[in-house]
């Protein structure tokens, strides 16, 4: 187990190195130059040359990459070109908000997805099952930015129940209730697509599990139906579901970019969008690296969860 963990952690190094090269190349080979964008149409040639020099953009790409990655290895993600502040504290500070949003959406999609899936499998072809199928189709097809705006218009503008954007009230807020109120709309928006995936997968694996011999045996022994479904059915159907939930965690981290932008949620996503628009290379690279690391760690956590769910699984 310990050796397995060590090996998995070591494997993170090539993964992150790959991510860093890809993101560096994508950013530097896509059109647009931060100096050009920063100075806009009033730029003189001298100003541009000077700014590029100051930002270290005149060096060849491999030199720029080596310079950046050696900084990263020393735990320094560089300084943002626009904000002129160190990237790492900036990203870490925003990461808290993103993790909170993603975790809430994950809990929401797991709880609601499992409940819907189990219920659909327990009463297949019932009204509940059909409604859940229709809702799933809707949830999976709606782009999150559209759904977010619709929810905002309904619950913030028309009903006035929830705040439309931000993480806290701008003045006098800051409590847990304030945070929770601001969290509802973005979390529901972000969770919508995942709920449907978890629900549909739970339904199908549960249906398969409920058709097994041991279920019939349990029923024959007189175990109550609820116990059969949850204890014998769900527990055995969980492995593929946990895998999907793990993957969903990654999707939610990535999907948070759009949701955060719609709801002005102060997370890594809004920071990354700001960085991309300004071609703020160090900032975007830092954001992506931190998000990729979080995703890799979540996957590792999911893999470790298998052993707990199914004692037959061993790591070597």
């Amino acid at each position, binding site marked *: 187990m310990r050796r397995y963990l060590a090996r998995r952690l070591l494997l993170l190094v090539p993964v992150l190195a790959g991510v860093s090269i890809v993101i560096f190349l994508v950013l530097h080979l896509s059109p647009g130059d*931060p100096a*050009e964008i920063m100075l806009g149409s009033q730029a*003189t040639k001298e100003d541009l040359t000077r700014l590029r020099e100051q930002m270290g953009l005149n060096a060849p790409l491999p030199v720029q990459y080596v310079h950046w990655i050696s900084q990263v290895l020393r735990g320094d993600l560089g300084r943002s070109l*626009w904000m002129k502040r160190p990237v790492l504290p900036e990203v870490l500070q925003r990461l808290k908000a993103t993790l909170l949003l993603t975790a809430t959406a994950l809990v929401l999609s797991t709880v609601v997805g499992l409940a819907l899936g189990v219920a659909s499998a327990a009463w297949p072809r019932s009204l509940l099952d059909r409604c859940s199928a229709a809702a799933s189709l809707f949830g999976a097809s709606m782009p999150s930015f559209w759904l977010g705006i619709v929810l905002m218009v309904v619950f913030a503008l028309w009903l006035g129940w929830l705040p439309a954007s931000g993480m806290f009230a701008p003045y006098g807020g800051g409590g847990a209730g304030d945070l929770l109120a601001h969290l509802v709309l973005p979390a529901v928006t972000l969770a919508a697509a995942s709920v449907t995936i978890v629900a549909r997968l739970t339904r199908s694996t549960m249906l398969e599990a409920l058709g097994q011999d041991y279920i019939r045996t349990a029923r024959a022994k007189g175990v109550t*139906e609820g116990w059969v479904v949850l204890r014998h059915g769900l527990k055995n159907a969980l492995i593929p579901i946990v895998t999907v939930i793990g993957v969903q965690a990654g999707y939610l981290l990535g999907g948070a970019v759009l949701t955060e932008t719609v*709801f002005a949620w102060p997370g890594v996503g809004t920071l990354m969008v700001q960085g991309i628009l300004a071609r703020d290379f160090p900032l975007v690279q830092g954001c992506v690296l931190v998000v990729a690391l979080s995703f890799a760690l979540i996957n590792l956590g999911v893999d470790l969860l298998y052993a707990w769910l199914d004692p037959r699984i061993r790591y070597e």
Partner: protein
Amino acid sequence: MRIAMTNVSAVLALVTTLLLLIVVPGGAQPAGTLVVGLVAEPVNLDPAQVTDLNSNRVGRRVVETLVTFPDESTQIVPGLAESWTVSKDGLHYVFKLRKSVTFHDGTPLNAEAVKFSIERQINPEHPAAKIGKYPFANYFFGNVKAVEVLDPLTVEFVLKEPRASFLAVLTAGAASIVSPTAVRKHGADYPSNPVGTGPFKFVSWERGQKVVLEKNASYWRSPVKIERVIYRPIVEDQARLTELLTGAIDLIVSPPPDYVAQLESSGKVTMLKQVGAHVWYLGINNQKKPFDDKRVRQALNYAVNKDAIVRDVLKGTGTLSAGPVLPKTWGADSGLKAYPYDPERAKKLLAEAGYPSGFTTTLWVPESGSGMQAPVAMSTVIQSNLKAVGVNVQLQTMEWGAYLAKLRTKEQDLFALSWMAGNEDPDMVMYPLLHSSQWTPNGPNRALYKNDKFDELLHQARLTTDEKKRAELYRQAQRILIDDAPWIFVDHEIQTAAHAKRVQGFKLHPSFDLRVETISLK
């Protein structure tokens, strides 16, 4: 089965209860606090280091300039300097500073502070030169030879060449006077801790969430009537609008044009409009065939239906432009008429120039960009207008940075661009964009326009300090320009803002500044 059902219901009940528990009434802000919704987060609060509007709109509440604008126009009035004199040769500007003005950190405003604020940008040896990047130092202060302290309250700027618009230069954000003590104390972190003499003091900045400023109780100009102002960055148009309509935000700028009519008729908010010192034009490469023929350029101007663009694409957020200078300002020529929409005239001119069946050309357009309004939609209308007179235009859209770089190749035929001078001095728009010394790649004259008479008039106007005489020179220059038609003149942006009814006394400023210090709350 019963247990499973109960579990599902229990979960649903729990979720519903949670939702109901945390429902909060959308509330108005506490008395004295103004909340402003920005379209993007400021990046840096030192106006000498920024190039974006949002940073300037916040940063300029904290710091001030020697000369400034009144609340409704861009005419120059005293700011931190109560008076000034200009030498006959136009090379020496001596400013007398206001007495007993102090920075927010308690240190006095004096000539040393003025010298420090400017020299940190232009002198690479200056102790504060290394702590930041000053992107427009050369553009604004390239002509400054020295800043001299004559006595604690008198400061002199010595120029390399005379430039009558130098006072207009000193109204720019980059010319803000900062507290040298604060810059030395915070170093590279100064942009997150700005200290000036302005109507508001910097309090805090929670990244991604808000910037908080508090009133400067001892502001020298006039008492500030609100306690604090909070700026929130909200990128999504609908979210900004919803926050305004639910009362969570008091003021937003640039509501999406599609909503302007709806907001104007809404009883909940007040809608404001103000023409800004901005011009949107379709540049023509004056050196390239067939555009080197004046008749072709005039034909293009006649062919484009600018009224339709302003009405249908911009939905009233632009006003027709007859030239680069803002109408109704001192340098504008009131007799100047915009080219009317006259496709027949355009065809006739094209035929006279030897293109009876038109020609094919390309139009470069940025996808977006500072001051660009709706570049692709506007260019599409222009494309179809030109097709109607036989000019086949191929649209090439590009990313803003890549676009600006491409314009330096001088390969452009037609290109869409805008300019935000931020003030009304004709020199600040005509000279950089149209004087032949400013040809790209060295300057922003990307139309490669050159007319010796026009150049001479602009040069003479720079040497003339008398505003009336300058105005006459600029009027002559504009008449040449209209006839030469180096661009298709399209529009000047009308800025829009919407605010809650409790906001009183707010005006949009033609310089695009956002002067919340004029506001009182009901």
